[in-house]
């Protein structure tokens, strides 16, 4: 029975191939059978996690917190020099120029990406309309969020920065950035589950030397990463505390 790896469904489509190449590289390096399973959406992935079907996951900060606290996962590595940031965008022709001018009737297009939604809801707090759940259009992907804005079905849209940047040039020409987060300290993390935990050190060793490995460097490039960096338990705990702090909604 192979181990099963998955990736947070918010990865950009440009890098799907890169994850498959990474999986092949990983199997050869570790001499372990690993199957890569990519899920179309967060619900499918959560079900697989709930059913204990995942052993290795590249998780967003929000899901990583749950996996560490509730499922016994431990951190292995993170891509260096990266951080998860979010964008609130509007139609290029929108009259909205700043967050405070948004009213309670604002329609929001968004995905099910939990950390992006959390960050964007916090960015909306100055408008005092973030808890209004009535006007939310949950879309299956970021390009569909963009489409909802362009078609004027929604007033604002929530995006992961990488996802926004990977939209086509034509799509971006029809959109405008209203706000962009500047947190700097939240990022995706590669985690191992209880079944694969015994190989954590070996995995870490291979990942941290991947860039200097001839084949490894090419694999990293195909995933859009520069280098893996060690992710100690305490750094993970810090990020969990941070997610907890962001989750706290003052009345």
């Amino acid at each position, binding site marked *: 029975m192979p181990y099963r790896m998955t990736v947070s469904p918010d990865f950009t489509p440009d890098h799907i191939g890169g994850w498959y190449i990474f999986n092949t590289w990983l199997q050869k390096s570790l001499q372990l059978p690993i199957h890569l399973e990519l899920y179309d959406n967060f619900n499918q992935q959560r079900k697989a996690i709930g059913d204990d079907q995942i052993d290795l996951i590249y998780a967003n900060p929000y899901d990583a917190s749950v996996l560490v606290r509730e499922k016994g996962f431990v951190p292995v590595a993170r891509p260096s020099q990266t951080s998860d940031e979010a964008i609130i965008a509007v139609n290029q022709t929108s009259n909205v120029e700043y967050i405070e001018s948004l009213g309670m009737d604002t329609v929001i297009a968004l995905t099910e990406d939990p950390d992006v939604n959390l960050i964007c809801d916090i960015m909306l707090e*100055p408008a*005092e309309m973030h808890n209004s759940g009535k006007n939310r259009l949950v879309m299956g992907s970021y390009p569909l969020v963009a489409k909802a804005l362009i078609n004027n079905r929604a007033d604002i849209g929530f995006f992961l920065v990488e996802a926004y940047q990977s939209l086509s040039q034509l799509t971006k020409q029809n959109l405008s950035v209203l706000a962009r987060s500047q947190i700097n300290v939240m990022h995706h993390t590669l985690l191992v589950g209880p079944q694969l935990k015994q190989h954590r050190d070996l995995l870490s060793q291979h990942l941290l030397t991947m860039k200097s490995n001839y084949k490894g460097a090419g694999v990293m490039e195909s995933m859009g990463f520069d280098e893996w960096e060690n992710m100690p338990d305490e750094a993970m705990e810090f990020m969990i*505390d*941070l997610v907890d702090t962001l989750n706290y909604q003052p009345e």
Partner: protein
Amino acid sequence: MQDMEPEDINGNYIERILIFNDGSRRKVLVTDKETPFQDGRLIVSRTDAAGIITHVNQSFVEMSGYSQEELVGQPHYILRHPDMPSAAFKGLWDAIEKGDKWHGYVKNLRKDGGYYWVLAVVIPNIREGKITGFTSVRRKPARRKVEECIDLYPTLF
């Protein structure tokens, strides 16, 4: 903690003396210049259990006007503004030392004597049942809440 220096101040200032809970004193130089809190910014910091800063993000550095080196190792009250009544912090230490979360609207003092308003949320970092420090995130506050605090805080001295 060092007193504020006139050469760091931007514009006309008045001098005030702050006395902190630990008995220490600091001369602060205060102007009436507000630095707007930019949409999307989140100020993140972490302290040890005694409230000494151990980690700051870039937004903290830019909004406070201090460098990272000047902040790390200092008590978090380096940002204390004399317009903040101690009563406004009532419950902060009680809550977080019990392991609870705390939030409040705070006027922070910049290195250049100016100020900025934040909605601060503080949570304790608990490791193996013990509080080892605190994580704080400061968000852009709703202006309506800031206006309420501007009216309320002077009545709490």
